């Protein structure tokens, strides 16, 4: 589904990601973990084309280099941004509908079904469909961000820190939904600091440190890896600014 070779992202002269190889198979859930600033978010942004990068990104067999982000979205590569990037002054429903804009533009006018599906997944959004996005709590905003991404009918869903800044109960709820998506066969690339939760959900995982892959392997193996345990799975693993 996704094949990345030699990815490199720079800001000014600072290297954020260097020589990164990565692949995601159809139906797989892959976790990308690592400390703050390891280059996880930069990787996702590069995959979507929102930052300039070098290296080869192959998606469903075709090179993505030079393809506009919105075209990537239209091809089913959809990102839930770390900062959610909702349209704060618009209602929940408007946000969701805009998530399907690429399809709408292609002429698909029947979005009702998708809407119902998202509402079924997040009943809280259904209750608040007329509410402005900016006035919702962090957890609800995160649900909306995921819901908006689902409206695009992603073939590969990129999730950036879905648990960031959320209360534990909400995090649990969000991961519950991710599990359901996984069960439905959605392919997911998940970036998460909550390494324990991420590795429990994922099939495989990569550990990024300072812009490079430090470790990789099946999620179950990573969970047992002493280095991962020490750095990311103690009580230490939870906190984040």
């Amino acid at each position, binding site marked *: 589904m996704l094949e990345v070779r030699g990815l490199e992202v720079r800001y000014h002269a600072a290297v954020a990601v260097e020589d990164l190889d990565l692949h995601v198979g159809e139906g797989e859930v892959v976790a990308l973990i690592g400390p703050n600033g390891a280059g996880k978010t930069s990787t996702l942004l590069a995959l*979507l084309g929102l930052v300039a990068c070098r290296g080869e990104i192959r998606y469903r067999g075709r090179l993505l280099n030079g393809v506009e982000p*919105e075209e990537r*979205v*239209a091809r089913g590569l959809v990102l839930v*941004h770390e900062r959610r990037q909702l349209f704060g002054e*618009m209602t929940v429903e408007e946000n969701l509908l*805009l*998530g399907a*804009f*690429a399809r709408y533009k292609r002429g698909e006018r029947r979005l009702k079904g998708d809407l119902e599906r998202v509402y079924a997944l997040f009943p809280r959004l259904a209750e608040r469909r007329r509410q402005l996005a900016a006035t919702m709590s962090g957890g609800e905003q995160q649900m909306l961000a995921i819901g908006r991404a689902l409206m695009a009918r992603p073939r590969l869903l990129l999730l950036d820190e879905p648990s960031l800044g959320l209360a534990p109960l909400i995090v649990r709820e969000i991961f519950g939904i991710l599990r359901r998506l996984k069960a439905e066969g959605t392919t997911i690339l998940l970036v998460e600091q909550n390494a324990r939760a991420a590795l429990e959900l994922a099939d495989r995982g990569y550990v990024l440190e300072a812009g490079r892959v430090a470790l990789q392997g099946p999620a179950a193996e990573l969970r047992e890896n002493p280095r991962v345990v020490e750095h990311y799975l103690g009580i230490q693993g939870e906190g984040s600014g």
Partner: protein
Amino acid sequence: MDPLIFGFLLSDGLISGALYALVALALVLVFAVTRVILIPMGEWVVFAPLTQAVLLEGRLPATVWLSALLLLVWAALDLRRGRTPLLLALAAALVVAAGYLGLAVPALAPLVAILVVLPLGPATFRLFFEPLPGATVLVYLILAVGLHFVYKGLGLAFFGPEQFGLPALLAGEVAVLGLPVPWQGIMLVLAAGLLMASLYLFFTRSLFGKALRAAAVNRIGARLSGISVREAGRVAFLLATGIGALAGVLVAPLSNASYEMGFLLGLKGFVAAIVAGLSSYPLAVAGGVLVGLLESFSSFFASAYKEAIVFALLLPVLAWRSVSSLELEEEE
């Protein structure tokens, strides 16, 4: 003051205000989506009636060729990027055909004029602004000033220095509360209102309109939703040119038109747009009406200092708006 004079000044201010409001709306739209302060807007506003006037004189206006040329250059750029620019080539042909149609059927001249001017906006965006994504507001502004020079120079070359008189689309006057007001003015105000209402509907009801708003408020969020910010920019320019050209065609029979009038019109629209913080559409309309009224009344009381009064009175408005705006904007 004599209530009759008051009434006249009021109606004059409202008519001018409607014009400035339209220009301000277009400027706000373009700025919100692209961060371009569209100085050449004023030129496009006058290009439309000037094109119409030349058509009515039985000559093919040079704007037709300009429009077609820009569209073809755009098409050539697309071709280089490996796309087939069939629509653009067709549009270029259409513009030329419309020009000849306007010659043959003078009644259609106003419509043709708007159609001819319409491609200038999006083509300008495509050729001059799109290649510089992410430039600062200041660089875009200077770029816009450069284009203003170009269009102004072209205006002089195409239309000459003199004004053109245009026939009213709807001649005559009508009494409003005992006050004679020209139909054309009422048409302008009505058209402004209608345009605003349809823009409102477009932005709140249509998913395309919402996408445009989305691109304006959150560019990254928009791209994540598959909304192309570039396309949004082109659409914003297209709408702005359309609004401007329509405003121009409607106001010209009241005021005559010359290539030079554009800048001042644009400036006043810009003032109204700033009063709205370059972000709020209803406030842009209010700002336009405010500028129109200020201008009308100050031209009665102290015509020599008219602009000075309009701008000086804006300072407190600005201070108030600045204090009451919550967001800490980037200073550029």
